[in-house]
């Protein structure tokens, strides 16, 4: 029993220590985000890598989700004659919930992993130390552009995801299942308010910050050689996805 408690205590202590380190890393990142010099070119390059290059995967996920959502809602709603509400369901789900969450998960899997692998390799090959010896702050030069790009691009990718998802739902609802297009569109517009879209976009900003922060943190704390980089990459994806799902509940409760 004592052994078991000791092990549990050790695990909790390690978890709290790690959380403290991540928060300190966030503090450092925010501090350097708002102080000069500003590496605008690096931010733009990261926006391309994190944002533009994620467009295909986000589009595929969003259109498939929108289409499936319409199909499944139709099956359920038809049983009590509420097929006309498919538009509202797809549009509300995509804006408030699925748009930001699925975009977050996809970007965490693609860009978060890539950030951790790139920075982790730089860490184990002493490139991050080399930056410091060249009187350049690695937080400022490497972390801030990725953090800013991830946060900003998640916002725009989520808008894209919402639009594509809703379009996919419309296509299935109207063209495949034969719902009246005017009813579908009216139901969607009437039941989706601007605040619903904003709630989704606030979530997107938080998820973007999480992906950037965790990807960079895991990269910066990589130890060992190739194995360490592998662990950092896996860790970045797993932790980012878990945090997105956990924070999604709290944000949904907060933005009710």
């Amino acid at each position, binding site marked *: 029993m004592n052994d078991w408690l000791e092990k549990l205590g050790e695990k909790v202590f390690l978890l709290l220590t790690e959380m403290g380190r991540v928060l300190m890393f966030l503090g450092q990142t925010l501090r350097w985000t708002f102080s000069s010099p500003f590496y605008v070119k690096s931010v733009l390059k990261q926006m391309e890598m994190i944002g533009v290059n994620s467009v295909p995967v986000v589009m595929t996920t969003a259109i498939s989700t929108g289409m499936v959502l319409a199909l499944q809602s139709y099956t359920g709603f038809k049983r009590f004659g509420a097929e006309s509400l498919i538009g509202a369901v797809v549009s509300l789900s995509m804006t408030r919930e699925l748009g930001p969450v699925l975009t977050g998960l996809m970007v965490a899997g693609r860009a978060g992993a890539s950030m951790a692998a790139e920075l982790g390799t*730089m860490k184990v*090959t*002493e*490139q991050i*130390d*080399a930056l*410091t*010896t*060249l*009187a*350049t*702050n690695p937080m400022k030069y490497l972390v801030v552009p990725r953090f800013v790009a991830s946060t900003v691009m998640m916002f725009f990718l989520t808008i894209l995801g919402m639009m594509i998802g809703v379009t996919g739902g419309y296509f299935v609802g109207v063209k495949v299942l034969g719902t009246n297009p005017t009813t579908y569109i009216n139901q969607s517009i009437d039941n989706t308010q601007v605040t619903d879209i904003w709630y989704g976009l606030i979530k997107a900003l938080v998820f973007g910050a999480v992906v950037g922060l965790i990807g960079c943190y895991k990269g910066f704390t990589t130890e060992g050689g190739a194995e360490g980089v592998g662990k950092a990459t896996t860790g970045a994806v797993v932790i980012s996805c878990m945090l997105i799902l956990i924070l999604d509940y709290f944000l949904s409760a907060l933005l009710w």
Partner: protein
Amino acid sequence: MAMIELIDLHKSFGSLQVLRGVDLAVEKGESMTVIGGSGSGKSVILKHIIGLLFPDRGKVVIEGQVLNDLDEFGLNETRKKFGMLFQMAALFDSLTVWENVGFSLKQHTKLSDREIRKVATEKLALVGLKDVEDKMPSELSGGMKKRVGLARAICMDAQIILYDEPTTGLDPITADSINDLIIDLRKKLGVTSVSITHDMQSAYKISDRIAMLYKGEIIEIGTPDEIRNSANPIVHQFITGSAVGPITAE
């Protein structure tokens, strides 16, 4: 006043005590080499000198300035006096050779890309390289990477150059050419050098003085000849590379 002074340096990582009161002074223009076994803390000393690590106790003084007392800005200003050649060169693999060499100039001066490239080409010529400006680090051999790393280290006209195992991983001929380059650069630029190595041939060739680090302390310091003729059994065993003696293999 010594260019670099390490005073009573102590450093531990968790329960592992690596440095146990290191005292070392390097004069201006001198070439000092720290020798010692793998894991003896040589790299830790080098990282303290340039402010990559900070001591648990003791201090690092660079030209009279205590490194521990400096803020981020002060530290970076002091770091501009340094150039460091890393063991595996640590070139930025997303940048071309000239961008690597001119990195400091890009960050800390207002020079245009064309001017930076011109300076980088000059520095590359100084380390015996030409027509490699547009190559990526992955296209270079180990020896060439070290030369590019050295060109990067001297690009901002550093006063102190730190060498982390400069000949490790190179064939004997390339290793000797790097030794010659270190000597040549010191003559041309008049820089102070601190090297760490366990390659004794290199240590004898490039050093004015050699210090031996053992169990976290400097146990002997002297000219290459003094070290070669040392009566200390630990030093003697290390420089002759014998498996028999007071030092046991890990």
